[in-house]
């Protein structure tokens, strides 16, 4: 099965989703990511979803849950690059991802992570 690569940069983890995820891939990402956070002792996670055109309630919830899990493992999650249509869909679905930090692009997301980890 395909896996979404998780890149490690210092104490940050970088996940770039480059195609529309199906449900199992999303769950696999959740597993991999939590394990990597523990293994690398990551302080922050940045998920780039700019290539994601379609998001359903399940993927929305997985993103939300992943962020909550990361927080439990003491890592801050920033979701970046959400498409306008995706943002509207999530809001209409009632998934405002309130627990997740968001930024417009990777650069701003990195700045946000840098600020909150006090570097």
């Amino acid at each position, binding site marked *: 099965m395909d896996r979404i690569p998780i890149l490690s940069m210092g104490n940050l983890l970088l996940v770039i989703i480059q195609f529309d995820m199906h449900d199992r891939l999303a769950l696999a990402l959740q597993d991999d990511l939590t394990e990597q956070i523990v293994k690398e002792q990551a302080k922050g996670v940045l998920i780039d979803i700019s290539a994601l055109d379609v998001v359903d309630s399940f993927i929305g919830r997985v993103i939300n849950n992943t962020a909550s899990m990361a927080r439990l493992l003491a890592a801050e999650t920033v979701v*970046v690059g*959400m498409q*306008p249509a995706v*943002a*509207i869909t999530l809001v209409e679905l009632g998934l405002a991802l309130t627990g997740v930090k*968001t*930024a417009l692009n990777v650069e701003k997301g990195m700045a946000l992570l840098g600020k909150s980890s006090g570097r």
Partner: protein
Amino acid sequence: MNLNTQAIDVSKFIKKYQYPILQDWMQNLKAQSVRADPAGDEQLREHCNQFLDSLAEALRSGKANDITSESWDEVRNLLTEISQARAKYGYTPNETALFIFSLKQSLFTRMLTEFAQDAATLVSIMWMLSTLLDGLGLFTIEVFQKSRDQIILRQQQELLELSTPVVKLWKNILALPLIGTLDSDRTQIVMESLLQKIVDTGAEIAIIDITGVPTVDTLVAQHLLKTIAAARLMGADCIISGIRPQIAQTIVHLGVNLEDVITKATLADAFVVALERTGSSITNRPLA
């Protein structure tokens, strides 16, 4: 004599007296209509003549009782064209329908002399023509109404597009002055244009100014919150400004929770906050 041969008779009759009927009809039209045809008398005459032509042609097919049939296509197309033009020029439905109804008088007076010797035929032909013209008259009104509806719909859309501008106030700061009531359709457009602008400009803060929103009820508040949530998902924070005292009162009385949102009384206050957030500031410098 059955209906079909009668229709053919009438067709011949119209062809025979087309010119005098046209003259009469034009006179009636001019006498009854309040204003001159904007396209001019020539155009009106042309339309009338075409209508008589196609009416005679359609009657020749013998199907006088069914104006939805194929042989009436040309008549209906012509009437559609005329009604649409009239709807565009702002005619009343009354004036539009007169176009057809005023033909009755000129047709009937001429028939009285033509079929004077046979009262039974005259009555049945008149009855047939009367129903026919009524049907056509109603058809014009229907088309007229449809075109008016289309015009209204188009204007609504234009209004929607006009009334939701997103302006860039400063580097990384957008403003969204809302004017008019927020319904679901407008919220959708507001959201789309705001989010697109956030992508285009890379803005971090959007100020939503509701000075021009007449009332804020729970639905409007919910729409505002949705817009704010969507902007946040794109990584931009929102500030609501332009809350009038009455609106502040309504919001609290309705129990709408705006506590997670930064709110300011005026756009200027919101702008200052936004500048601080983005690391800029305004200072007064002494005038030289």
